[in-house]
Structures are given as structure tokens and as C-alpha cells.
């Protein structure tokens, strides 16, 4: 049976139908992005009376600024750690769930809950648990001889935000890994078992390679998440401190722009972030289909 095609002769109708989507895209995405790019080339006086066009001055200053370079470093540490931690823990959980087939619904449901928690709430939860004066974790750590205080110790603070951010992302990764694992045919692992591969060897030589599309997808998603979606967690737990120790790029945009009111620099920073996102997305689209094929 052939699909029936209806043709509307009106030339305007298609544009009319597209208009709502175009309007949303223009007003909420394109316009602010253009504004950001424009602001990044300008300097504003303290009272907002006058803006001067200063070409690339904001960018030049930015890359000469040690706090900004420090922030780039912190972001790299943070993003890599969150991605590795969130992905490895979720893979471990997914593999475990995949082994117990009968109760896996219950596990899956429970493990997905953290994803439904808002980032700020996640931040508050972990802030509370690790609160140096009232939290349970520092209390227990003191028993081990560790004096936990993320308010004064930069590496403690970094550890805290990494744990909090990973915890939230684990559920998301977990869901994808479970789905990925379930699409690996059982007969392949059985064939490998007969071929003399133990459980670990089976996983690394058969299951993990077949999971690579999922893994690669999650890798990109997680880097994106760690770099751009963790604002709420940072804000609620450490607010970028102590002494810039957890001031990742996306938080610095906010801190410099809205707290420091240095709109030009903040805009330049957000343009840099925008370029990073574009690059990551390009990688995702370019390689996700090609590299991971088997």
C-alpha cells in the first residue's frame, strides 16, 4: 500500500508551522548566544552607562590570568575524575545487576532514583554528610585519623564535589549500561565460556568490546555533564572554594559575571565554553558511528 501524500499549495504554511520552533530557538538560544559573543568583545563601565568595543582584550586578559588557567586545570581534574568514577562504578553496578536477573527490576528502579534528584539538592545532601562540624562522614573519618575539612583543605573540597557529582551521574550511566549489557547476546558469553574464557576474560574480550558504542556515548555525555551541568552541585557544596580549589569554568562564568559583575570577561569565558561544547558535540557526531563499529 502506498502512503498517501497530501500537498498543500500554500507557500507560507510550512513557515507558519515551523514558526513556533524557530521562535523558541531564536529567542532562547541564538539571541543569548549572539549577546554573549557581542559582550565578550566589550568592556562596560562600573555603572553600566557606557560600553566600549575592545576587540579581543577580554580573551587576551583571560588567557593571561592565572586564576583562569587554574580554573582550566581544576576543570580538567574534575571532569576526568567524575567521568572515570561515574562510569566505572555504574558499569560495575550494571554488570552485577545483569547477573541477577530475577530481582533486577527492583535494583534498577532503586539505582535510578539519584538521577531524579535536583543538582542543588544533591549538593546539599553531600554538603550535609560531609559537613566538618555536623556531618557523619567527617566523624567517621576522624576515627581513621583523617581530619576532614573541605572548607579549608582544597583537595578535600575537590574530592567532595567529585563524589557528589559522580553519585548523581551514576544512575544515568547505569541505565545505559544495563540496556547495553542486555543487548549483548547471551549465546556469545556462553560460546566464550565453552571456548575456555573465565568470567573476567569473557567480560574484557567479549562483553566490553561489544559495549563500546554505549561506553563512547556515555564518555561524551559524562564529560559534558561534568563540565557544564555541575553548577548546582558546586554552588551548594563549596561555592568554588576554598581559595579557587573547586572553581571550575562553568562556575567561574557565574562568579565573575554575576558576583564580580565583570560582564565582558564572563562573556568571553562563556564563549570559550561554547566552543568546547561545540567541539565535543562534533566529536560525538563524527566518531560515534565510525569508531565504535564492529
Amino acid at each position, binding site marked *: 500500500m502506498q502512503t498517501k501524500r497530501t500537498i498543500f499549495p500554500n507557500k507560507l504554511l510550512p513557515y507558519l508551522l515551523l514558526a513556533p520552533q524557530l521562535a523558541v530557538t531564536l529567542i532562547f538560544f541564538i539571541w543569548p548566544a549572539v549577546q554573549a559573543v557581542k559582550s565578550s568583545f566589550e568592556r562596560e563601565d562600573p555603572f553600566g552607562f557606557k560600553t566600549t568595543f575592545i576587540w579581543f582584550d577580554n580573551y587576551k586578559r583571560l588567557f593571561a590570568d592565572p586564576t583562569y588557567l587554574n580554573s582550566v586545570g581544576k576543570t580538567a581534574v574534575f571532569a576526568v575524575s567524575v567521568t572515570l568514577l561515574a562510569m566505572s562504578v555504574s558499569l560495575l553496578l550494571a554488570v552485577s545487576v545483569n547477573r541477577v536477573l530475577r530481582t533486577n527490576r527492583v535494583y534498577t528502579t532503586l539505582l535510578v532514583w539519584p538521577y531524579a534528584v535536583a543538582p542543588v539538592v544533591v549538593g546539599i545532601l553531600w554538603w550535609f554528610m560531609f559537613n566538618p562540624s555536623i556531618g557523619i562522614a567527617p566523624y567517621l573519618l576522624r576515627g581513621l585519623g583523617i581530619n576532614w575539612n573541605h572548607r579549608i583543605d582544597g583537595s578535600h573540597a575537590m574530592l567532595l564535589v567529585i563524589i557528589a557529582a559522580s553519585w548523581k551521574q551514576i544512575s544515568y550511566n547505569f541505565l545505559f549500561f544495563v540496556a547495553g549489557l542486555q543487548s549483548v547476546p547471551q549465546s556469545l558469553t556462553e*560460546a566464550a565460556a565453552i*571456548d575456555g574464557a573465565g568470567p573476567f576474560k569473557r567480560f574484557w574480550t567479549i562483553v566490553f568490546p561489544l559495549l563500546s558504542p554505549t561506553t563512547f556515548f556515555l564518555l561524551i555525555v559524562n564529560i559534558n555533564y561534568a563540565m557544564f551541568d555541575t553548577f548546582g552541585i558546586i554552588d551548594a557544596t563549596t561555592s568554588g572554594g576554598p581559595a579557587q580549589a573547586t572553581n571550575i569554568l562553568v562556575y567561574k562564568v557565574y562568579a565573575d559575571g554575576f558576583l564580580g559583575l565583570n560582564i565582558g570577561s564572563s562573556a568571553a569565558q562563556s564563549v570559550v565554553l561554547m566552543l568546547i561544547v561545540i567541539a565535543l558535540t562534533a566529536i560525538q557526531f563524527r566518531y560515534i558511528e565510525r569508531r565504535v563499529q564492529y
Partner: protein
Amino acid sequence: MATINLVDLKKNYGPVPAVKGINLSVKDGELIVLVGPSGCGKSTLLRMVAGLESVTSGRIEIAGRDVVKAEPAERDIAMVFQNYALYPHMTVRQNLEYGLKNRGTPREEIDRRVKEAADILEIGPMLDRKPRQLSGGQRQRVAMGRAIVREPAAFLFDEPLSNLDAKLRVQMRVEIRKLQRRLKTTSLYVTHDQLEAMTLADRLVVMNGGLVEQLGTPTEVYDRPATLFVAGFIGSPPMNLLSLESIAGASGFDGLNLPAGTDVVGIRPDQLTLEQPTGPSLALAATVELLEPIGGESHLHVRLNTSNQAVILSVPGRPDIAEGAAVTIHARPADLHPFNRESGRRTDTAVANP
């Protein structure tokens, strides 16, 4: 080279029994086919031998060694799966090598065996391709190759031909038979296709409901089915099973001399004739419903006038019979298989069976 012994093997899924006590001894170099309808437990049985399913009770001995608690890898078996289970991310060569590498086989030995298997199966030119670049028949060969290179004590085949088209299936069936004859490796082969079972098997195990219905060579099973189930399952078109009442009034019935307890008689479609044979015969009046020409012979569907029961005849050539015509069909007493409906078994001399 090994024997396989199954001793009172049972498998329950929770409270549901899937395999209800199987005894079977496979001789060295023999190809045994397990055949039965879906859900009869044949695949479960095979997977228990492979070590992929746990055993509820009973013993499995491969080459005289009890392997019930052994890992699949320790059983020295190779399995060919229904969906081939080729590792999709590896080339054909890597697929063949995988099992050998896992066992630490030396490089020269691996190369020798892979080359040998590739020559036997004529897959040499495909060694560097990925499974997805192969046709169904080629994948089937690679799956066989992966079993051959291991040089195992036994091959296990789990419906290996059911994903192939009809023509290829016949071709691969012949190849599997030749290969098994050549390598003389003890094999267990599961299928639901009775024709495949008949042509491949040294001995046939007909299974139903988790139990063995009959064990014997294909001709034994075909010529003397031990139970009503086997009679109806083996042979195409299936054996006609006629209740005694429906033939009681027919001419020649009194001379049949059926054993005590018989209430069903079976007769193969190709042993029913339209012409009266020489010697005594049973003659049944029937009406033609349909004539199916299938080439060299035709299937004639008729209904008995006495009981309205449907009967199929295989008749040579293409007889000129109109639908609705009255015919008389004849059977020689020697070709009748007497059964008891209650027990489901033959009522004449017992066959050597479970």
C-alpha cells in the same frame, strides 16, 4: 574421541520439570540426534551436557569423567549454536583462534589448526573478514570451524541449520554428515526437524515432555515406532492413526489378528494403496477430498466413509481422481502398527527401548 553417558539426568526449573530422567550412552564417534517438538527438553538436555545449565540430579560422563560440576571450558566439548554466536567484533581468524588462545596453545599449532579447518570448510579467503560481512551459510561454516579447531572430545549442535534457507539447509546437512564421518568426533545434535534427524543420525533419540520416547537407528524408529507419539512425529506426511472402531466393519478386518489391547492402528501414507495388493488386505471405503501433486508423487487426502476420519495416502505419479470421488484404499496387514491409546505404546512384541 570419547563416549558420553547420561545417567538418570533431571532438570527442574523451580517446580517445573523440564527433563525428567534421561539415560543415554553415546558411543565413541557416534552422531546421536535428539529430536522432538519445541519444549520437549532436548535443548535443555544439550545445554546441560555443555555445562550451560545446572543439573538438578543425575550424572553426565564425558570420556568416563563425571563433569556435572565442571565448568563448560573443562568439559572438552565444542558447541555450534543456532544463531552461530560468532564474536561480531573479531575477524573470522580471531573467532577461530579465540578458544585456542584461551587455552595457551602455541602459535604454530594455532596456525596449523586454523589453516586445516579453513581448508576443510573452504573458508580460507574469508579469514580476515568480520562475521557481518559473511552470508548465513558462510557464518555457519565459521561456527563449525570454531568447533573443529578445538579438536574436542565431542561436538554439540543446537539446531545449527534452522536459520538457513531450505536449499542451504539440505546442503549443510550433507556437509555436517560428511565432516562428522571424516573427523569421527562423538556428536550430539539437537533438531526439531524430523527429516534432518532421520538423515543425519547414527541413532535417533525421540523426546517428548522431558522423556525419551524411543531410541534407535532412524530406520528402526521409522519402521517400528515404539509409541503413538513417535508414530505421529517421525515421517512426513505423518502416519495415519486409525481407531479400531473406524475400521472394524471393513472387509479383511477379521483376518487381521491384532494383538490384545490394540485400539489404534497406524499405517504410513506410502503403504496405503488404491489398487488391491496381492495377498490378504484391509479394504476401506473413502471419499476423496483433495489431491496434492508434489512432483514424483501425490498426496491424496481422503475421508473414511465409516467414521469420517481423515487419512492421507502417498500415491505414485499424478492419478486422475476428481475431488468427491469414491475410492477404496487398501492396506496389507503386515504394514499395520498396533497401538494402545491408553498406554500410548505398541501392543505387538515390545521393541528394545527405554
